[in-house]
């Protein structure tokens, strides 16, 4: 035999001999390299599952765990128990690794086999799960309300400095993004309106359109959606990380209710800052509308302002402000709920943040729809 074979690919031969199956291994066995498939020996092995294996090396070159994995598959019987084998003529390292691999038998039930469940089972499980989640949500809402009640009578334990920081974070620091988005929304509304209204020579009514839309709907809603993405996600991630880091456990064990200490200040911060931001968003939106009105339709600045003042009543503004307070509560509750429900891993924190944004946006839109119905009935 030559020292270096031209093609030293992994080889394996299996043959029955003297009541044993002789397995002869040769060539280079490397992870990622070409390795013979176990399937070609299945007929020999399955016909006699109780026959011991005799493992032999013949011109075995370099090898790594791919060889062990291959031998392991030969040794494992279909019922999961290993057959007896004699590896005494294999290299020392192979013997050692085989010994390790088969030293501890498989723990029954440890392997996770995928079992497809029937459609009905899955629907049932999903319904039970969503019911549980809904119950958790309600329980959270309940204890948040109680904690808020405690705050109102001045018995809640929280840190004033933390509340002020949160107010700065949710309010003042969101100024830039709220300015930009609402200014652009105002401009877009004005564009859409201008094209249509100019056809009837009614360009001045762009002011009504923009003013009403911003005050009643868009100011509060756009601010809420910005807050959901910005602050709701941040709340969920903060509380989720605190849960992973055992900080929430530490609070409860000090006898501090995390609801009072963490959730109430966040709710308060958003309840206070959302209406202010929404008012500011209204103003910026109307400003954006005016830029389009003055620039595209040649309306006068004074004219536009006067028309806006006449069309937007205080009631409209109030509706927007009330909505903003409600949306603020929704965003805070969704963010904190998802944060407190967070599991125990870094992945769970990410999921909590995502789910906080999705939940708050869904809630915002649904509640906005309810507002529309109720206000319509009230005739406002």
């Amino acid at each position, binding site marked *: 035999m030559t020292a270096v074979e031209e093609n030293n690919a992994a080889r394996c031969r299996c043959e029955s001999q003297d009541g044993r199956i002789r397995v002869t291994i040769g060539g280079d066995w490397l992870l990622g390299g070409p390795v013979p498939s176990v399937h070609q020996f299945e007929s020999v092995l399955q016909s006699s599952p109780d026959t011991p294996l005799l493992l032999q090396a013949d011109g075995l070159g370099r090898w790594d765990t791919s060889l062990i994995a291959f031998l392991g598959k030969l040794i494992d019987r279909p019922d999961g128990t290993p057959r007896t084998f004699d590896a005494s003529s294999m290299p020392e390292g192979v013997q050692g690794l085989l010994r390790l691999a088969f030293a501890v038998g498989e723990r029954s039930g440890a392997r996770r086999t995928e079992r497809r469940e029937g459609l009905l089972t899955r629907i049932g499980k999903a319904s039970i799960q969503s019911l549980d989640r809904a119950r958790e949500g309600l329980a959270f809402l309940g204890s948040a309300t109680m904690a808020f009640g405690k705050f109102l009578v001045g018995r809640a334990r929280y*840190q004033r400095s933390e509340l002020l920081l949160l107010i700065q974070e949710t309010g003042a620091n969101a100024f830039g993004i709220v300015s930009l988005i609402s200014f652009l929304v105002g401009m877009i509304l004005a564009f859409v309106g201008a094209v249509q209204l100019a056809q009837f020579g009614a360009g001045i009514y762009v002011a009504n359109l923009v003013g009403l839309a911003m005050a009643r709907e868009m100011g509060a809603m756009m601010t809420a959606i910005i807050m959901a993405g910005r602050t709701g996600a941040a709340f969920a991630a903060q509380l989720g990380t*605190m849960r992973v*880091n055992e*900080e929430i*456990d*530490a609070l*409860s*064990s*000090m006898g501090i209710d995390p609801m009072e200490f963490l959730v109430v200040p966040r709710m308060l911060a958003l309840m206070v800052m959302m209406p202010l931001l929404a008012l500011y968003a209204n103003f910026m939106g109307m400003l954006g509308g005016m830029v389009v009105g003055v620039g595209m339709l040649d309306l006068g600045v004074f004219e536009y302002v006067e028309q806006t003042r006449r069309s937007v009543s205080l009631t409209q503004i109030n509706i927007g402000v009330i909505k903003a307070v409600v949306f603020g509560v929704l965003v805070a509750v969704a963010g904190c709920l998802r944060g407190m429900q967070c599991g125990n891993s870094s992945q769970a924190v990410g999921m909590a943040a995502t789910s906080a944004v999705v939940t708050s946006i869904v809630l915002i839109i649904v509640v906005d729809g309810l507002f529309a119905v109720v206000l319509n009935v009230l005739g406002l």
Partner: protein
Amino acid sequence: MNTAAEHIRVENLTMAYGDFVIQKDLDFSVRRGDVFIIMGGSGCGKSTLLKIMIGLKAPSTGEVYYEGDPFWASGLEHQEELKREFGILFQSGALFSSMTLAENIGLPMQLYTDMDPAEIRENAGLKLALVGLRGFEDYYPNEISGGMKKRAGLARALALDPEILFFDEPSAGLDPISSRLLDELILELRDALGKTIVVVTHELASIFTIGDDCVFLDPDTKTMIAHGNPKKLRDESPNETVRNFLLRGELEAQKEKRGQTG
């Protein structure tokens, strides 16, 4: 056993997640001024038992008594009063990451005492000095090392001068030297302040250094299979699982060797 000195008693306790029982029929008491160790292999429910003792998780059945006062049968307000006597060091330290060390330690004082801010800061500084962190008042938890976080967590646990200290795996993630220093600190706290200390751990070195008394939770039989002084258990326990655990598996290894040669 001297029942007059009994501080904590766990009676007929079963803990489970849903239908899955982790441990059942736990019965033991902790004497005042002892370092009491809860030990057992990974996954035997040590940390869950701790959670029940400190009031974070309700047991399925059974009760924990503090000086004869039942914890779980009490109303929320009384539970909070009892909790105020606990100081807890969590596995990761669980310091509030948005606060400095002084603020972390000051928080319980601010909430539960009438001390003014200057006094709180002074006392927080003292607690930090006790754990060897003098001068670290204004550091944030992410600016200090893992061992320092543990010690700062301990300082926070000491904030209200509690009667009982609970430690969840104090030496996990610490190098041998820091973990030994922490053990020494635990002993000093017991001797100097007379605290009762409950430690969850599986570090043999600490178990023998600090433990006065211990229970061994067995994941296979799902109950406690030994109770007593750890050194005594190692040398005299009739139960092989316990001796093997306390000898770091030497028993089994020896048996295997004999089996191979014989």
